[in-house]
């Protein structure tokens, strides 16, 4: 196949339907940006779940000396060893409790630093600002109230927190956003497909003279269809490139520059996860229009 011939056919075709090509590019870019965005949000949820979910379900934070003035149950200062022993003994008596971990403020600090090593707040917190805590895993996570009522307000206990419930809210929000993104993506994908089909159809129609002659002089079907398919693929690739640009700037501006400064308690997805999504976006961006073009041509371009 003569590359020069095909290239000139493609550029003529693309310029001939500039507006349609533009519409294809924009719709492919939007649908793929939404698709990539949804994948990344799911990745985000999984990252957080992996870290948090099975580790703890209920945390009982014990008083440290800084809580003396702010928390009523901590008026006597940091929790004593005696109080800790009593709490542990009482926890063991509760039938809903599965496992108990004790985390010192030092350990909490280490974990905290590990988790936020990329983020600015890692340096702000000092070990003695964090509390010692019992991390309690329940046999049945919904029985959180049993633990709460037993320990809330007890001297030496700063707070009882169901972290799962906290996380669940966040996950629900993210999953909800994801669902919206999926619906939008589906719609955009349909729009993109319709535009591609129509563009290819118009393109095939405007060049029916050429293709008719090519057919009669014995050009292969492959040769006749290739310029149209490449046209669609190039438009798709351009759209996919834009989508990648949107995802990268989303990660940079939205997550790194903004969210990670506003929302401190979450570790956000890293660049490695973004980078793995980009090739996927590009491949889909090329294949989807190419395949759509191929099937459109079977209908509108007799070979």
């Amino acid at each position: 196949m003569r590359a020069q011939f095909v290239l000139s056919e493609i550029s003529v075709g693309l310029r001939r339907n500039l507006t349609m090509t533009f519409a294809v590019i924009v719709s492919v870019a939007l649908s793929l940006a939404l698709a990539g965005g949804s994948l990344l949000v799911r990745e985000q949820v999984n990252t957080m779940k992996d870290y948090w979910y099975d580790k703890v379900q209920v945390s009982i934070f014990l008083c440290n000396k800084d809580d003396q003035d702010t928390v009523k149950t901590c008026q006597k200062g940091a929790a004593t060893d005696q109080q800790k022993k009593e709490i542990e003994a009482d926890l063991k008596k509760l039938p809903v409790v599965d496992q108990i971990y004790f985390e010192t403020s030092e350990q909490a600090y280490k974990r905290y630093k590990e988790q936020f090593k990329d983020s600015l707040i890692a340096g702000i917190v000092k070990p003695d600002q964090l509390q010692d805590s019992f991390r309690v895993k329940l046999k049945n996570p919904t029985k959180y109230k049993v633990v709460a009522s037993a320990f809330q307000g007890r001297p030496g206990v700063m707070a009882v927190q169901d972290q799962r419930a906290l996380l669940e809210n966040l996950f629900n929000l993210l999953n909800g956003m994801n669902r919206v993104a999926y619906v939008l993506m589906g719609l955009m994908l349909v729009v993109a497909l319709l535009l591609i089909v129509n563009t290819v159809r118009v393109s095939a129609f405007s060049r029916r003279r050429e293709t008719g002659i090519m057919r009669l002089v014995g050009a292969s079907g492959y040769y006749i269809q290739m310029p149209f398919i490449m046209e669609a693929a190039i438009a798709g690739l351009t759209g996919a490139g834009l989508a990648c640009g949107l995802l990268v700037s989303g990660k940079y501006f939205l997550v790194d520059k903004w969210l990670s400064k506003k929302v401190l308690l979450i570790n956000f997805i890293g660049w490695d996860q973004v980078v793995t999504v980009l090739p996927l976006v590009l491949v889909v961006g090329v294949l989807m229009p190419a395949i759509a073009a191929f099937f459109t041509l079977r209908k509108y371009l007799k070979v």
Partner: protein
Amino acid sequence: MRLEGSRIVGQPGEPVPALLNPPRLADRDAAVIRFDNVSKTYPKQTRPALRDVSFEIEKGEFVFLVGSSGSGKSTFLKLILREERASQGAVHVLGKDLARLSNWKVPQLRRQLGNVFQDFRLLPNKTVSENVAFALEVIGKPRATIRKVVPEVLDLVGLGGKEDRMPGELSGGEQQRVAIARAFVNRPMLLIADEPTGNLDPQTSVGIMKLLDRINRTGTTVVMATHDQQIVDQMRKRVIELEKGRLVRDQSRGVYGYQH
């Protein structure tokens, strides 16, 4: 059994004089086109466009296909090009059974056939030599070959010196010469022409016929559908006549029609 010109039209099984009966096997091999009881009914049509047509055309022949409008001439040519497929019977072109030729092999067949139409079918935005070169480019011929053969064929059809004109700057006859050059540039075994003089005045038509005759004399088989009585009567070539899809006459050195 009748004798028409030197060709025999008879009933199957009827005895044929030995001298006039060529060896059957050699006959088959020499046939460029062979129709065996071919019928064609277009989808959603009740009346067939061709009914039970059988004949052979041998290498180097020049054949006129005549018949009134709607008698099936174009259908006949489309079956040879495998633009349409026979509903019944077998079509052999250049030794290939078209019913058994897979789709991806059709381009290979068409590269051995040249096509000329009433409406020229040139690309208006390409020059004369670009139009001819296009036919070679799209079948992947090397550029060196194209540069060599395009001027040659343009000389052959009498368009030397007009290579860089646009089709719009040519007369109808000249445009048809470009189309013939394009059809012939790949030196096809068989040239198929559907009313090539249909849009031309008698004077110009004679020029085109001379050109087709010259191409025929290089060994290329020519099959031409036409309404042009004068041309058929003058050339005295083999004539196949269709009437409502039936082959009603097959005559060598024939004329347009008895009734005219």
